[in-house]
């Protein structure tokens, strides 16, 4: 069991990462917040000893993705329609990139997670394969197909 101080520290450190993955995978804000809280509850009760920060971050990401997947086993969540764009976005003077987020969200579940991990978290395909417990060739395939789908949707310059 982690102490309150450790939890506070971890929430501050990984809140954005967890929130992004929840946003990517969940269809509404209520479910997204629910998963968000469950990730840290699980950290408090079940987190193992970590070798280093990278190990800890990988654990947080994997647990978040798994909890999101598990939540879709619930019939009601599976059938709830998309509600919203997150509130914490964009001041008006920035370019509106919501269409990019929407395009990524439309990708099949495995594709959107590898795109996020590859382009945002800057993990290599090998690292993603170990994080998601998948064959590295599978990751390459998913990445390649996801990129093609995004290019079709958003145009060629989206990944540059």
């Amino acid at each position, binding site marked *: 069991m982690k102490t309150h101080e450790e939890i506070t520290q971890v*929430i501050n450190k990984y*809140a*954005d990462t967890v929130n992004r993955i929840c946003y990517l995978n969940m269809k509404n804000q209520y479910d997204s917040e629910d998963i968000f809280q469950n990730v840290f509850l699980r950290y408090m009760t079940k987190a193992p000893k970590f070798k280093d920060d990278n190990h800890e971050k990988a654990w947080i990401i994997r647990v978040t993705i798994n909890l999101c997947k598990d939540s879709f086993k619930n019939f009601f969540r599976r059938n709830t329609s998309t509600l919203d764009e997150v509130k914490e976005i964009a001041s008006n003077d920035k370019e509106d990139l919501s269409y*990019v987020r929407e395009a990524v969200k439309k990708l099949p579940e495995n594709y959107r997670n590898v795109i996020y991990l590859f382009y945002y978290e800057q993990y290599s395909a090998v690292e993603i394969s170990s994080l998601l417990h998948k064959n590295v060739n599978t990751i390459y395939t998913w990445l390649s197909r996801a990129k093609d789908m995004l290019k079709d949707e958003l145009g060629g310059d989206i990944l540059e």
Partner: protein
Amino acid sequence: MNKIYKAFDEIHASEDLKTKTLNRCKPKVRMKYIPQLVAACLVLFTFVGGTGIFHASTTEAAYISLDVNPSIGLSLNQFKRVISVDTYNDDAVEVVEGLDLKGKKYSDAVDDIFEAENLLGYDVSAAEIYIEGNSENLNQEINDTIKLQCPNANLTCHNVNNKEKAMEYNISPGKYYLIEQIVQYGGTIDEYVDKSMNELKEIYSQYTGESYSGNHHNEEHGNGAGNGTGLGMGNGTGNGTGAGNGSGNGAGSGMGNGNGTGQGSGHGKKQ
């Protein structure tokens, strides 16, 4: 920097969400753990209670030694059941062999032992039974029960701890107690340790001029059956009645010419 990075970099967790999460993660006893807590308490009580019962069932609360010539000791727990059997001579080993005494109620165990001794030709009516319990009530209860089982036996009850001293000589507490009585008149314990109960009783009689009777020596209380010397009324055939003499009051029958030895049973009083 690609647009995907930029697009996701705009997403942040609100402070409100962080606070809510932090509050949910506060360590507290939640309702869902109450069944586990109750279960844990039950396990604890069972363990503590179980230990108590285990202690009561394995700790010696009383010791009975039975000396005919086979010299046997029964260790009893708080529930008056046999927890161990000690044999102090070869005859005792022979008697106990084949008997399953452990776990039996002491009265059944005594019955079994006397029955086996009878079969082997020992005169159990001359048994010296020595009881050493951790409370007077327990002593009394065991004494009364055994007295009913073998009214002619010589019972002594003690609250003093003779067992440990007897163990040093590897003899029964009953025998040790008799030797203690003898050494008051002469000799040392070592001299008498190897003698049989009958021999010791004879030596005691020589010193004191009276037969050995536990009734004479009870230190705490002495309800018991006693051998008394009696005056016989001769009728030519040698049968007579005798009145118990000594601490035991009893009616007995004697053989002899006017003077006979009578055996009597009765309640003795504390000397």
